[in-house]
């Protein structure tokens, strides 16, 4: 009897807090959604919490056209595909070397990656800009690709945890078959780390997708606009029209939600397997 009560209270607590948490998460998104679907008139005349009687999609069309979102999506996709692909290759390479070999500089390299994570990059842009300009990449998407290419400590952490779970015996048997280290990386390590790469992908895409400052600085041409800069540019002239801004915000959220739904099973598998303690 006592145990039953305890379990019941525990269950109420569990589901209760999950529901409250979910409501807090959903509330702002719900408000944004319903208000983005109101015409100017409906927006002015109905309460913010009320669902519009008639769904008006015109804000989405206006936001898409006036915000130049079409080309912004293409530019963003181009940058993301190139940099994430490169990033995964480099990240797995670093993880393979750090995870499988012992050598002198290993500790220093890891510490190096850790330290740079704490540099507020916005303050070092003058020097970085000099590099990008010297390389002749200013005002091209490749400037951003190069900046996003490098791996970072969180990625290395995810990959390292994962590679430690791949039995070394696999490497050894491949070596018995005469495989080179490069071949081991290419045919064993890289494919087996794909779930971790799914995690890395989503984290990296989120970071690139939300980056505001670098696109402004390195690709000022308006026709090179990316999604987050398009949204900020859009806000200036339209900041009085909340229904439009909310519509633009939602349009921008959609591709990420789709990507997330697609990668979801890999991500959680990746993180789960990737963070096993040694």
């Amino acid at each position, binding site marked *: 009897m006592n145990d039953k009560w305890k379990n019941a209270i*525990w269950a109420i607590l*569990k589901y209760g807090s*999950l529901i409250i*948490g*979910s409501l807090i*998460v*959903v*509330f*702002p*998104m719900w*408000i*944004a959604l319903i208000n983005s679907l109101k015409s100017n008139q409906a927006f002015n005349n109905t*309460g*913010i*919490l009320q669902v519009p009687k008639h769904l008006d999609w015109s804000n989405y069309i206006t936001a898409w056209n006036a915000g130049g979102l079409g080309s912004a999506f293409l530019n963003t996709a181009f940058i993301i595909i190139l940099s994430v692909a490169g990033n995964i290759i*480099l990240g797995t*390479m*670093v993880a393979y070397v750090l995870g499988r*070999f012992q050598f002198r500089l290993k500790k220093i390299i890891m510490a*190096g*990656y*850790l330290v*740079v994570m*704490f*540099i*507020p990059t916005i*303050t*070092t842009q*003058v*020097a*970085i800009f000099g*590099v990008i300009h010297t390389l002749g990449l200013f005002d091209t998407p490749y400037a951003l690709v*190069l900046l996003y290419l*490098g791996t970072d400590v969180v990625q*290395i*952490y995810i990959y*390292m945890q994962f590679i430690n779970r791949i039995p070394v015996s696999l490497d050894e048997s491949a070596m018995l078959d*005469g495989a*080179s*280290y*490069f071949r081991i*990386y290419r045919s064993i390590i890289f494919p087996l780390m794909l779930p971790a790469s799914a995690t890395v992908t*989503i984290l990296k895409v*989120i970071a690139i*997708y*939300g980056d*505001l400052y670098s696109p402004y600085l390195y690709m000022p041409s308006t026709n090179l606009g990316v999604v987050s800069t398009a949204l*900020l540019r859009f806000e200036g002239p339209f900041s009085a029209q909340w229904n439009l801004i*909310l519509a633009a*915000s939602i349009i921008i*959220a959609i591709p*990420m*939600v789709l990507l*997330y739904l697609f990668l*979801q099973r890999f*991500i959680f598998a990746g*993180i*789960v397997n990737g*963070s*096993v303690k040694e």
Partner: protein
Amino acid sequence: MLSYNTQKKLLIFSFLAIPLALLITFSFYPAVKLIYYSFTSWDGLSNNYPWVGLSNYKSIFTNPGLFGAFGHNFSYLVCGIIQNIIALYFAIILNSKIKAKNFFRSVLFTPYILNAVAIVFIFKFIYLDTGALNLLLQHMGLGSLQQDWIGNDSIVNWSLAFVSMWEYFGFNMVIYLAALQSVPQEMYEAAKIDGANKWKTLIYITIPNIKGIIQINLLLTISGALEAFNIPFIMTNASPPTATFLTNTMNVAFTFGNYGLASAMAVVLLVLVGVVIFIQQKLLGGGRDVV
């Protein structure tokens, strides 16, 4: 074929060459430049880099207007810690036997995948004095709790820090969840046999087993809190009551034309993050490398 020893050397070199070149070019070299600028009074544009020694550092610690902004970062720090507690709590719940696990997990993770700028816009809308939050409170009969969420100086930084919490707790949660799932099941069974209750299991088995992950999550959260920039920048244009140390740094560099002083501020910030993380490591113990 080359011997494995030669191969090893070759592979380490060739695999690390590009990543390390990127690391040095885009992280270390700019950091060294930053430190150099911090000893000058460079204005950010001219070809003069007048050497001023430590005077920039002195003025940071003697000008309350500059250092005082850390008071605003404090809200982000507190909310960051709460964010981790909530994240861990939900991770523990989602790790237990529960219905609709995937649904809840996905919902709670969603804010993290939304565009950061879009999130700030949405909250700007919700925080309006006639906005959704105040209306909701009124409808719930909690009208007395209505606030000027952005206009009230003693609340505004908490309103902003909440946005950060809302955005990032899902990320922490998923990382904790992953760590929890990797705690060996046998340990829990052994504890059950010993008659340990849920609370004791949490304190003596769960927490110690995921200490490393807690450290990493806190590390990210704390450095994020001390370096808060985007949310105050987009939401309130970093007005005085919401200016953080980093928004002040950018202001000093680009409004007041003192890149040297701004660089010194960035160096101080970097050192401070290091110190806080060192203290955190000492307090939580563990001693082992986080990476």
